[in-house]
Every structure is written in C-alpha cells, then in structure tokens.
C-alpha cells in the first residue's frame, strides 16, 4: 500500500492504494465519486472517462498511483454548484436516454470545447467516437453540443 495525494475536482484528497488499483476503482470505491462508470474495463467504451490535468483519459487504464499530485476532474466537479450551459443544453434537448454514458460524454465534450469552442458536426462526431452510447443513436448528443456552441454566439 502506498499513500497517494491528488486533487479531485479541485479538492485535495489522500488515499491508500495498491499499485494495481485503477484510477476508476479508486475514484469510485475509495473516494466516493460515482459518475465515472465501468462499462468494459478495457478502455473500449469511454464510460470511465475523466480529465487528468484537463485531458480526457480512460480511467480504467490508468493506475491511480500514476496520478500523484495531478488534477482529476469528474462530472461531479463539472456539475459543481450549478450545471454548465452545456449540461443545460443536454437537458433541454433530451440528449440522453439511460444516462449511463452521459458522464463520459460530457467529460469528452468539455475537453473538446476547451480547445475547439466551435466544432463542426464532423469534429464533434470525431471527438465523441470513443464514447459508446447504445441508446440515443448519438444525434441528440451532437445536436446539444452544436446548440451550445451556437448559443455562445461568437
């Protein structure tokens, strides 16, 4: 067991971990963050996506111990005290069904919009291609991201 210190949603957290424990399992089971989900445990589905220092990763393929001192952002951190405009767009356009892929999708979309505030439809599809959604057929998700960028008005 080793002591790990990292920032989760801007909060300093300390936890004991075995090297083999994934960031996903540590976030969920030891740090109480439930929005990253386990869909496949091999990096194929994107349900476990979180941001490490602003970049989206597959937390099931990261050993927690790699993240000493880093900034981890989960959907709880994005939701905060008030949902973001992007999240409001998702709600308004019913851009979800069962909701299980939604945390990973919003993590990916958040990263996309950080460095590309006005993505085209193709760029959105490209960015989301690692997040599997079995329910929606993706169209309403793409529409929400497009609607959000239009609303930004720039």
């Amino acid at each position, binding site marked *: 067991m080793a002591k790990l210190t990292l920032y989760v949603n801007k909060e300093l957290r300390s936890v004991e971990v075995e090297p083999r424990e994934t960031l996903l399992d540590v976030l969920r089971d030891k740090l109480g963050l439930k929005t990253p989900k386990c869909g496949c445990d091999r990096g194929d589905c994107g349900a476990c996506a979180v941001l490490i220092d602003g970049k989206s990763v597959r937390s099931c393929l990261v050993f927690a111990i790699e993240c000493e001192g880093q900034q981890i952002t989960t959907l709880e951190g994005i939701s905060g005290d008030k949902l973001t405009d992007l999240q409001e767009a998702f709600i308004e356009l019913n851009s979800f069904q069962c909701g299980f892929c939604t945390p990973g999708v919003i993590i990916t979309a958040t990263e996309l919009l950080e460095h590309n505030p006005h993505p085209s439809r193709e760029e959105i599809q490209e960015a989301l291609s690692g997040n599997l959604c079995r329910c929606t057929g993706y169209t*309403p998700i793409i529409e929400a991201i497009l609607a959000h960028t239009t609303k930004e008005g720039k």
Partner: protein
Amino acid sequence: MKDFRYVGKPITRIDGREKVSGAAIYTDDIDFGPNLLYAEIVSSPLPHARILSIDTAAAEQVEGVVKVFTGRDFPFKFGLYMKDRYIFAQDKVRFVGEQVAAVVARSQQIAKEAAALVKVEYEELPAVLDQMTAVCDECTLVHPELGDYPHVPWFFPKPGTNIAHWRKTRRGDLEQGFAEADHILEENYEVPRYAHCAIETHVAIGKFDHSGRLTVWSSSQSPHTQRHLFAEALAPMGLTHKDIRVIAPHVGGGFGGKAGVTMEIIPAALATKLRGYAVKLRWTREQEFVNTYQRLGVVAKIKLGVKKDGTITALDHKIYWDAGAYVEYGANVVNAVGLSAIGPYRIPNLSIDSICIYTNLPPGGAYRGFGYSEMLFGLESHMTTIAKQIGMDEIEFRRKNAILEGDKTAYGAAMNPNGLIEAIDKVVEAIDWHKDYQNTDPRKAIGKGFAIFWKAPAMPPNASSSAFLKFNEDASINLIISGMDIGQGYQTVMAQIAAEILGVNPAKIRVETPDTDRNPYEWQTVASHITWGSGNAVKRAAIDAREQILDLVERVHHLSRDSLYLEDEAVKCHTQPSFNLPLKSFVVDGIPTEDGSYRGGPINGRGMFMPEFSSATGDPETSQGGHPNVHYTVGAGALILEIDRDTGKMKVLKAAEAIDAGKAINPDLVKGQITGGLLQGLATVLYEDMRYDEKGRLLNANFTDYKIPTSLEVPEEIIPIIVEVPQPDGPFGARGIGEHTMLPAAPMIANAVEDALGIRIRSMPITAEKVILTLLQKGKQDA
C-alpha cells in the same frame, strides 16, 4: 384531433437533471459499507459436460474468503415461462460460461484469486452447437428430463428431443393456396446471435438480514417479476414474497437483456446463506456477453406463392431457433414469432412452424424486437425478391397486400386499427423513393431498400400494471409506479399523462425508480407495452384523484361537478370564471370550512390496468382461437445506401422510418427511439458479428471485436415520421413503439445491396467483407 396541454408535446424529460448532473444512482454506485462481500463465479470452460467433482478446499483456505458455494447449496430450478434453469449448474454444464461455483470474499481481488483455485473435474459430453444439428434424430439431448419441466400451458415441448417448444399456426388450405399461385419462391435465410451490449453490465446485490428478510438491488427491467422468480426459486428455503424486497435503481440500458432473471438470482441466493451480509455480483463485460441472455439465432425456410397481379395466396414459413442451453424466456420469443410470422400482410392460406431448439450455447432470451427482427430479415427480403421476380414495384406489392383493420391475423383475430398504408406512403415521400439516385463516382453503387414491419407485445394474458398517485403540500405529485425507465423516457411519459388529467405541469411530477415494498405491481418493462399498460393505469389513478378532488369541491363549494375542471394547478369553474381554488391549499390539508373544521384530506389516487380480453388458449395444432396479442404496432422504412464497389464499405446516405404510435405522448421521445433503434438495427446487419469456435466458446466477448456503433456510424440523414391512428384502448390512443424501430433495418440493407449490386445475400451480418467475397465469388462463377 383534440389538442392537449401536455400530451403530444415534446417536453423536456423529467429525469434530465438527475442524469446529466451525474446525480442518478445506478446499482453499482450504491455503497454498502465495510460489510459488503464480493462474489466471483467459477464458470464452465466446456459447452456440455458432466460435473464429476468440485474441489473447493484450496479456495476456502485463502485469507479473506468467507465461503465457497456450488450447485449443491442451491438445487433449485427457476424460469419465467418454463422451469428449466438452475441457480448453479447441478450435474451438468450446458454452455461455456455457465456458473458452476461462487467464491464470496471480503474483496473482489481475493474472490478472483480464490476462484482460480477451485478445481472442477468434467467429463465432456458431445455438444450441439447449431439448431439444425440439434434437431436431427439420434443427437445429444441437452435436456433429457424435458418432459418433467413445468411450463406455461401455451408451450408444447417434445420430450425425448431438443425441441423445447413448437408453435404451429395454420389457417386456410396451404396446398390450395400454392396451387392458385402463378409464381412461387422458396428460399432460406440465416440470422446469427446478437448481444444487447447495454453500456451498464448486469449487477445485483443481495442482502439477507438477521430478521430473515432478503433485499435485492438489481439493474433490472422487472423488479416485481424478479421478486416473483426469487420467491419461486427460494421457496424450498421457506421464503415467500413478503420476505423478499427488490429495489431497482436507475438502469444503464436494458434492451430486453435485463428482463426476467439471469445472474441476479446468484447474489440473491448467496445472501440467504450469508445472513447479515450484503453480497455483490457485478458482471464483467466478458461475462455480460456470455452469461446473460443473447438474441436467438435463426434458420428460416420461406415458401411464398403469389398471383401475377401480386396478390399473396400462400405462405409456408418454417423457423428453426437456436435458443441456447436454457429457454425459460427464449421459448416465448419463438412463440411470439410463431403467431406473427406472416408479417404485416393479409395472407389467406398459411402455415407457420416456429421451433425452439436447445443447443449448448448461452441462453437466448428477450432482445429488443423479441424475434421479429430475425423473422423480418427473411420475410422482407423475400417479399422484395418476389415482387421483382413478377415485375411488380415492391412498394405497390406492399400496398396491395398490407394488412388492414379487420383483416385476420395469423391466428384468426381481427387486426387492430393501424396506419400501415399511411406509413408506407409517408416513407416513400420522405425518402423521395422514385428519384433516380444517380451518383457521379463510378467507384460507388447506390441502392434503395424498403421494408415494412409489425410487432405485438408478447405477454401472458394477465400482464398488468398498477399506479398510486399522491399529492404533496405544494401540489407536486409523486407517481408511484413500477415500470422502469431504461432510457426510453417512461417516467416522463407517465408524468405527461398524469399532468394532462390533473392540470399539473410534468416538471412538478416526480417519478422515482421502484421498490417492490412501496410500488404497486407492474409485470415487466418489456414488450413495448408500458406506455399502453402502465399509461392506462396512471391515467386511471389520475382520474381517481381528479374525481376525489371534484367530488370534494362540489361538496364543499356547492358547484356542480360538471362545471368544474383542473388547470394550472387549480380547480376552476366554467360557469364561475372567478372561481380558482389552488390545489396546494387543500390536496393534503383538506378544505377549511366556516366553523373551523376541514373537509377532505390527502388526495391519493389509485389505478390498475389488466387486459381482460387477452387469452393464450389457441388450438395447439393451429393456434386458431384465443387472443394472444393485445394489438400490433406497424410501420415502414426505407433507406438509400451507397456501396463502395471495391471495398464493400457501405454508407447509409438517407433513412426514413414511419411508425404508428397511435398517439405520440411525447413526439421527441418517439423520434429518439427511431434514431437509436435504427442505428442498433443497422449495427446488427452491418458489423455486429458474434464468433464462436468449434467448442462453443465466444471468441469476441469484448468491444474491441464485437463492434457496436460509434458516433461516426450515424447515417447522414434520418427522417423520423410519426403516424397516429389511435389505439382505441390506449391512453389518449397510444400504443408502444420502443422495440419496433429496429425491425426494418436488416431487410432494408439486404434489399438495398441487391438493388445496388445485383447480389442477394440471405445471411446476416451483411458486412463489407461479405459483400466483396460474394461479388468475387459471383465473378468467378460468371467467368
């Protein structure tokens, strides 16, 4: 058509904030504290074998292991429509992946390591890995004791064979019908197995507390049916329904795979021997592929006779189902299609044989479409082919033979009101079917594909729904129902129905996920029936509450109740426009009177719906008589497909799908089902591809090699079309559509490929590779 305030409106879903904020709790998100134990399964590496011995000694020695269980601990059978299934394998294993033992330990890691130390000795038996082998004489029996299995009265197993059920439907004179035909086409079609691939795998936690009460949390489409099956299976332990509680949190996708009971029974049973603990079992993605329900495989033989004017005279449809090692649910898929394999057509002389065959492969079960996708692949491919052979436009052919209201279904009942012709017409127009889709790139071929479809809910005749409704002090409402929102938007639609009756905005109506202790009975969230069934129950509960409100106001304010109505959370009066009594002033507190006493009290509504006209008592040899299906939903679809001639890669340029929802309570959600369902259907025909080896082992039990659609796979344009021919007994005229939207995808692609390249592929999937290899083969033959 009357315009409603909330019904028929594309309102925002009421579960949006919960899901998009991440607040929604799914089963694996619940914390049970330090006393939570973890189960790990030992599973069979062989498709068919006798279990000679199980040595658990080494596993038991591992520190942190609490107990190791085998079939000996739970020699109980269970099953939804037939009791052919075990909690753990007993004397035999019947498919690769079947659970043989379980290690329960303090951590998942310990359980996993200990499970690897369990030694099982098998005596391998011959296995049957496809239905055509399994159905022949002298072959290995998967269930030699088939004759002893209890089952619903409308199943007809053949003991001494691998035939678990044989549904026969016969009407008219088949021989005569073929004699009248000017043209007959006979072909075979093959459809393999498919996996649901909900992003959330199956997970359940069982807890048996010191008072002897069992609680099971599970990701389930059917909490009440789960409780019932647990009660039946665990009855030998002295448990009945009052001792069992099932709590179903949010579900991360179901698609039929989380209906009935599969792995959930394991932690439920384990808990009963671990009093005071909670035991969790969460399926890995690999286990999700191999040890939950799969979609059944099909070999279909279709013989169709038509007159030269296109009138269908006769259909002989034989369907052989690869149903897997246990068919307690899958046999009803076979049954449902056996009653409906004429498709949405008027056919006077017909014979359907739908045969459920045991194989040593994972159990088949409910999968979106319940057998109709598999059936329609062959049938709609066949219809297009025969139309072309007699030189008739395939759209005209459908129009001519489309089943209309009052026509007889395969089992002799009258077809319900439906907008099939309207759906066909609207799709043809939306897709611009008659346009000549020329393309400038000689490397690409363009093809058009068309299909019509239908499906009825497959349910027991007494499948019922119930609803409680209560008001809160702020006039918000709690709707207490047991249907599951598995993504389709059920909670929102039920809220819209209650909102319409009670004049309360759906945003003020809360619907929580159910708990069998608190929420009244709902059979299952399957069959695309809960908009209809649960919707009727909710409407009745809302009307019950409304009647109480209006009775009370009439009594207290002496206004004729005929003049009263509900709007904007208040009771208003047509004859006295100034009258406006806010609901919040009395729906809990009652109405104060002059002398200081109150009238009324908390308003609680109650509703229940069970069809009383449905029966499964058709003739066993012909299926005539009875009314097994409550109604059919119909639709049509078309697509324009671009195929690269050299690589076979296909792109859907445009797709249109029309579905008759009766009344779309929320049109946005219906469109959501069309988009999502169409993509799932296209995936089964274009790239989902299960690969088993010769020992019955699934080789691609992961998303790396079983491909489900990504955001890059979305067709360029999807046109959803809602047709509304009311369902007379549906709430506001509604009927279900959730499964149906995937049904036309596979035959549309098969038809488009033929249109584009002149090759007819009769097996799924129709991958780019299969297209090219077929073309190359044809090239060799032509040369």
